[in-house]
């Protein structure tokens, strides 16, 4: 019989160690602990595992994206690589034609892109979890001075890239991390 996982997906940031099976009164059956580390998993091991996964789920990045702006011939940016909590995309795609479940991106101007994310995503079991963007940071792949800025607005993140003089940069390659 199929089951529904406990709690909510990691990106909701509300998962407790108890959702993973941790319990403050966890104990080994009949008080007998591990007698053979090669074959046994003790309650102590298990409690550490559940607490540490809960810790990671609270702070893990939701998306890590590397993309390239198309400004010389103006077009939607090319998304080179995406690592998301809901999936990994190693084959590049155009920002206006994202694969299902991956963010879209639109060009606003030179070095100026807006990413749009879904308000919720499903995990492997079909459990829907809302996601609110809390942080965004970016870095520019370049050989000269470049600096990005990020602005979060609802389910979008707008990234702009400037040079040392404060002018917009054309065709930058950017890594964006969204939490």
């Amino acid at each position, binding site marked *: 019989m199929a089951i529904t*996982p*406990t709690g909510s997906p990691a990106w909701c940031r509300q998962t407790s160690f108890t959702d993973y099976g941790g319990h403050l009164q966890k104990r080994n059956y009949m008080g007998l*602990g591990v007698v053979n580390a090669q074959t046994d998993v003790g309650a102590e091991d298990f409690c550490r595992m559940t607490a540490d996964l809960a810790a990671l789920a609270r702070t893990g990045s939701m998306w890590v994206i590397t993309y390239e702006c198309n400004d010389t011939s103006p077009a939607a940016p090319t998304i080179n690589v995406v690592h998301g909590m809901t*999936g990994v995309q190693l084959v590049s795609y155009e920002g206006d034609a994202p694969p299902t479940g991956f963010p879209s991106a639109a060009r606003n101007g030179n070095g100026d892109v807006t990413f749009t994310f879904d308000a919720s995503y499903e995990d492997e079991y079909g459990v829907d979890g809302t996601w609110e963007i809390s942080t965004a940071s*970016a870095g520019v792949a370049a050989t000269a001075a470049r600096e990005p800025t990020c602005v979060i607005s609802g389910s979008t993140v707008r990234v702009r890239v400037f040079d040392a003089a404060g002018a917009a940069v054309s065709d930058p390659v950017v890594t964006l991390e969204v939490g």
Partner: protein
Amino acid sequence: MTWGALSPLPKRLGGSAEEGWAPEQHARFCADLVAVKRTGPLARLFVTQDSAGPFAASVTAYRGQNGSGLIYAPAVTVNGAGDVTLTWPAYWTDDYERQSPLKIRHALPRASATAARFINHVISGRTVRVRSFDADGAAIASDFSLRVW
């Protein structure tokens, strides 16, 4: 019923909240573990660089999925003032000594400074080259933190 030390692996799902592992909890554990694995950084590290020639640089803190501590840190090559290349081993070895080729896909360096700095990177396979600049765009040595995926 689970039998703890009286029963060898594989562990059977079920039992009480205090002594067992429910399938619903196991399913949530697996889904979330995969989620955080997908976006977890390969490593986060801190690099310092001398402000004067020959601009010696070193990794002073390293937390990596391959290990925590400087013995796991990438090799550092100084290309010039504010210009450092970090090179990871060709293969990643996990805790069970299984090896996989290592390729870096993303990098996010941030300067550690008391004045304005620009800091940029270039990824090439298992190397990340980081350059730092002052507010005028001139190369300058700068400490920085770096996350790579």
